[in-house]
């Protein structure tokens, strides 16, 4: 008798699973996947999503980076390189200013320690995520825009 009970238990357990996949089959319109390039417009990324590092610029093309290289020190992978220059201020003093904020996208692990370390709140993680390039050198990015200046309050 145990023989037939085994068969009954086995078959009913299998039908149980088939019930689930069968139900899924009938409700296939509840699909889980998204059609990616088509849904670009409706794609919502959370504001904290870490896609790329940016240097915040105001409308007047001013950034908040003083070139203190705290982020360079905080980075575990040596991704950031701050190149600074000496600049004459209006009253004749020579001051350190940011020349180039170089960030190697390919080496970044997106730990956001640089954002955390920045004393002047100049850095931010942005949500862009499509960065496929044909050459690795193109992932070496200069974050300060051409002709940008330090904001007045930090000078």
């Amino acid at each position, binding site marked *: 008798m145990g023989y037939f009970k085994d*068969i009954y238990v086995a078959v009913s357990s*299998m039908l149980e*699973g*088939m019930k*689930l*996949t*069968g139900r*899924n*089959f009938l*409700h*296939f319109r*509840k*699909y*889980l*996947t998204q*059609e990616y390039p088509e849904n670009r417009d409706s794609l919502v990324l959370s504001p904290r999503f870490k896609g790329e590092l940016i240097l915040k610029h105001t409308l007047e093309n001013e950034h908040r980076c003083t070139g203190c290289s705290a982020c360079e020190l905080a980075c575990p992978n040596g991704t950031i390189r701050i190149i600074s220059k000496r600049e004459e201020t209006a009253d004749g003093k020579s001051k350190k200013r940011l020349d180039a904020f170089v960030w190697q996208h390919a080496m970044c692990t997106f730990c956001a320690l640089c954002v955390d370390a920045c004393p002047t709140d100049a850095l931010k993680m942005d949500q862009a995520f499509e960065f496929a390039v044909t050459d690795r050198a193109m992932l070496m990015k200069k974050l300060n825009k051409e002709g940008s200046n330090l904001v007045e309050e930090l000078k």
Partner: protein
Amino acid sequence: MLHILPLLFFQYFTTNPELILVLKVVLSIVAVISLVAVLGLFLIYMERKVAAAMQLRLGPNRVGYIGTLQTMADTLKLLTKEGFTPGESDKFMFFLAPVIVITSAVLAFAPIPFAKGYQFWNLEIGVFYVPAVASISVIGVLMGGWASNNKYSLIGAMRSGAQIVSYELSVGLSLVSIVVLTGSMNFTTIIMSQENGWWIFKGHIPVVISFVIFLIASTAEINRTPFDLSEAESELTAGFHTEYSGIQLAMFLLAEYVNMFVISAVAATLYFGGWMPLHIGHWEAFNHIMNFIPGVIWFVGKTLFVIFIIMWFRWTFPRLRIDQLLNLEWKYLMPISLVNLLLVTIITLMGWHF
């Protein structure tokens, strides 16, 4: 004079019996090959869509309208790929294996009736012929696995050998139960015997049991999950066709789907009446309405239904282990189908079926 030359040729061709036979054969070959190609493309597409729906995905949707040309593109890719032969392998056997597998799959088409009178070969022993020819494929699988000079391939081929040889018995025994009921091995005769109802309804529980056993055993015969041990992806990477690529791989894949179609067609013919419309006893009006739907639609519909069940199995169940696989056959399916055959024989002798 010249303008009637074509007519003369036509007359010559249509009256000479030998030439007609040659023409018939050529046409049949062309028909079978194109049928196989179309079937392969369609079934792979269907499989991917069914799988996607069961897993709440979209499935192929890029090439063509809702991905209908996806399999075409995949086949094109496979055809243009390099046919790679591993070093140290047995080159001739390696080449021959997929050819044998696909040949056996195509040969099994011969006696299957697609609609009334549409049959390549009205063979008297059709029910016997199909499993006999289909099981030649195991030789191809064994050859391919051995010739690949790869341990995974060899294990896969050996598993396949043990599996197909065992499950052949259950397939045969469940086919025999219908043969007992109809007293014929001819597919057309079997279909005609279902004029007043399909065997699955007429033959009481024993026929239902034999249908279930046939379904399980034939799933094992065509190496599909939960019995896909010979190509167990997570165990043996790809089993016996690990080393195959390009068009040779395409042949193996095509053979799998063609075999699935053949097995489903046989099940549809034996248990669901093939191209015979749904007839219920003496309800003349109902039967008459059903007759308006052409036979080929009945046949394809029933076959696709059986194929869908086999696909349903695949996308629900995990895989068995080799010893469990053999246990299932020798301890469960075989004894049950033997007892079942006895029951069917009693039913036939007493005339208890409708």
